């Protein structure tokens, strides 16, 4: 699913590229694809519409840098707008500017991860930040909910409010704050029962809890897998209790997490934290850039474009692009490409940013990528004569031996390089036939020497998960 989506986007943007300048019609077509991509990522429909309208305005008539294609320019505008809509660069910290004990209220639908997140916050604030934290469960609905929080508090090494049977949630909230004051806690985290946005009685209850505790943060905890209903939930909770921050849980799943945008759009509250596992330390700050790429299924395209335009010699790239497109790509050009790749930094960093490379990347996860192959290739190529570099076909057995000796490589290595170059040329020709794909993407992707890839190649099974404890 991931790949087809980014493929679709790439397709449109490539069509734009071949057409030259951005027209209104081009943008409209791209926006249709963006709309679909966002809906597939579970961004709520009204939010998608609003977003598209704003981006369309920006895109039409936008200046397109010479070094990137119009398609990439649109992609960058979309991506930037999305990052901005998700809150802009950087994470927003919890607001703990209040007199101790500082109340933090956790609210949300059933099963969204409130109790677990309360435990995670306990660990973070009590451990790393060395605050005195008290966890209090106001959940009198779900069986064993209070026990669940008590156990999590114990694991996190923080205190939990003693359980007293028969108290109402509001009474527990009051007792928690009294205990917090009396026993000198810095922070009191109030976990509440899950409730539906349309449950008037329970929404009224949480309103009362808020009134008696006056929390510094009211965190709406939302499952990253949430669909279109995100808008209803966001609106209802925001109207009832005034959400000050959002926590997206289960970001360790493979949902695209469009609900993040819906939530942010409706409440205006920043997404402050994300849950990335069941373990108590699986709590992270929210990074809009990462989630934007995830929603669009594009990888960090803008990052790549930026990095590329920062570090690549635009003229050089252009020259290489032309040669590739004409099928006149020789070993000199290959050496030049390697230099460009080296300039851009680590290969895995580049892979991170390449659309459609997610799968390959997960294959590579944890394995060391052997970038030394690139260096060997450069050395081998530099031992060739000019005519050999231009017409690699003439390199037969005796030449191979000479080149190998000259570069301190084996004949086998020379063979591998030639084979690879041959594969690459074939691929270039295929790409030509398919209609020129963006050089930046295909050029680098195609340049990944096979020797650098760990065994197995893309398309294999899922990586091993880890049972948290």
């Amino acid at each position: 699913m991931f790949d087809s989506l980014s493929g679709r986007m790439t397709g449109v943007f490539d069509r734009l590229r071949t057409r030259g300048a951005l027209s209104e019609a081009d943008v409209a077509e791209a926006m249709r694809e963006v709309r679909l991509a966002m809906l597939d990522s579970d961004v709520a429909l009204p939010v998608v519409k609003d977003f598209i309208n704003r981006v369309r305005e920006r895109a039409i008539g936008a200046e397109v840098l010479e070094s990137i294609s119009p398609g990439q320019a649109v992609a960058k505008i979309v991506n930037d707008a999305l990052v901005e809509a998700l809150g802009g660069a950087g994470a927003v910290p919890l607001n703990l500017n209040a007199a101790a004990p500082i109340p933090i209220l956790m609210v949300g639908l059933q099963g969204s991860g409130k109790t677990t997140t309360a435990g995670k916050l306990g660990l973070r604030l009590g451990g790393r930040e060395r605050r005195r934290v008290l966890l209090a469960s106001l959940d009198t609905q779900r069986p064993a909910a209070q026990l669940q929080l008590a156990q999590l508090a114990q694991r996190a090494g923080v205190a939990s409010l003693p359980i007293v049977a028969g108290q109402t949630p509001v009474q527990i909230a009051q007792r928690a704050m009294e205990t917090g004051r009396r026993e000198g806690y810095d922070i009191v985290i109030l976990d509440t029962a899950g409730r539906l946005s349309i449950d008037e009685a329970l929404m009224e209850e949480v309103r009362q809890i808020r009134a008696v505790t006056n929390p510094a943060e009211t965190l709406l905890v939302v499952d990253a897998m949430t669909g279109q209903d995100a808008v209803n939930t966001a609106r209802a909770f925001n109207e009832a209790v005034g959400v000050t921050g959002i926590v997206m849980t289960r970001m360790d799943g493979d949902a695209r997490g469009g609900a993040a945008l819906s939530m942010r759009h409706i409440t205006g509250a920043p997404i402050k934290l994300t849950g990335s596992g069941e373990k108590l330390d699986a709590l992270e700050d929210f990074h809009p850039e990462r989630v934007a790429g995830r929603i669009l299924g594009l990888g960090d395209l803008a990052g790549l474009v930026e990095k590329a335009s920062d570090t690549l010699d635009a003229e050089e790239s252009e020259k290489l692009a032309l040669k590739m497109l004409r099928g006149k790509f020789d070993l000199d050009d290959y050496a030049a490409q390697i230099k460009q790749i080296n300039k851009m930094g680590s290969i895995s960093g580049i892979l991170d940013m390449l659309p459609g490379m997610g799968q390959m990347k997960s294959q590579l996860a944890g394995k060391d990528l052997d970038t030394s192959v690139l260096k060997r290739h450069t050395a081998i190529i530099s031992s060739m004569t000019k005519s050999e570099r231009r017409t690699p076909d003439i390199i037969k057995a005796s030449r191979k031996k000479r080149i190998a000796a000259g570069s301190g490589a084996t004949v086998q290595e020379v063979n591998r390089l030639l084979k690879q170059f041959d594969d690459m040329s074939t691929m270039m020709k295929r790409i030509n036939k398919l209609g020129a794909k963006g050089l930046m993407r295909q050029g680098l992707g195609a340049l990944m020497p096979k020797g650098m890839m760990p065994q197995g190649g893309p398309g294999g099974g899922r990586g091993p998960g880890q049972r948290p404890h």
Partner: protein
Amino acid sequence: MALGFFSRLKEGLSRSTQKLGGNIAAVFTRRRLDDAALEELEELLIAADLGPAVAGRVIDEFRRTRFGNEVTDEEVRVALSAEVARVLEPVAIPFVPDPALKPHVVLVVGVNGTGKTTTIGKMALQYGRAGVRTILVAGDTFRAAAVEQLQIWGERVGAPVIAGAPNADAAGLAYQAFERARAEGADLLLIDTAGRLHNKGALMEELAKIIRVLRKFDETAPHSVLLVLDATTGQNAIEQVRVFKEMVNISGLIVTKLDGSARGGIVVALAEAFGLPVHAVGVGEKAEDLRPFRAADFARGLVGDSVRLTASQPSADPET
């Protein structure tokens, strides 16, 4: 705010008669079902989580039969929900424990927090009342207080609960429970499992292991593997079902939290893609809140009373 079908059902007649006044004008105003109107309907389906592709297909089907007709909102509502129901009808299959199996072993699986443990409690009540001797197994040996949660459910509905030591091996526990249930002549064995995301290979492998171990005792077990799905889930549900089906061969679905504002349209996409039986729906947190899945009801709830073509004034009167 959009309401789910069941919540509307609960609020009952008073609300619908109230609304009738407001809607009556719309109901009696006809509008041509043109491209603009169909687009509105398509968006309605998208907003119910059918996903853009499936919504598009449903509307295409709809277009073929009704395009250009003069219709009322009510006619659209009925026809569109019939179209959705047509997709759901084949998967509306109740779960019936096989009385010949002693016990019918059911493994309950799903991603975190969907309502597995609660649904097991509800099923135990429902089948227990029907005279089916039911035993519950606290197979979530991982999450904090998961065992206690199921034990409370067991007390509530009067079903015995078999539990192991904390962090015990879930497969071993399931095996022992199966043995005991067989020895005691139980009819139904409901095995709870820890929530797990489908993209975590090791956790999915753990589920596969539970099944392998159960088969050592009886190679026909488990007789059902039920995936519990949260109705608020969006398009990721498709991947969930795909992977769980691949890894543990799920036999059917139960959709929870339909008492909320989520419409659960993803069920339509799932019916199209996998055709797995949808056995029941959860409509609340109480033991009684489990209902059979009925295609027509579900479709009506999904299309809902929100079908209101905005431009439903007669085209002859551009003033209003």
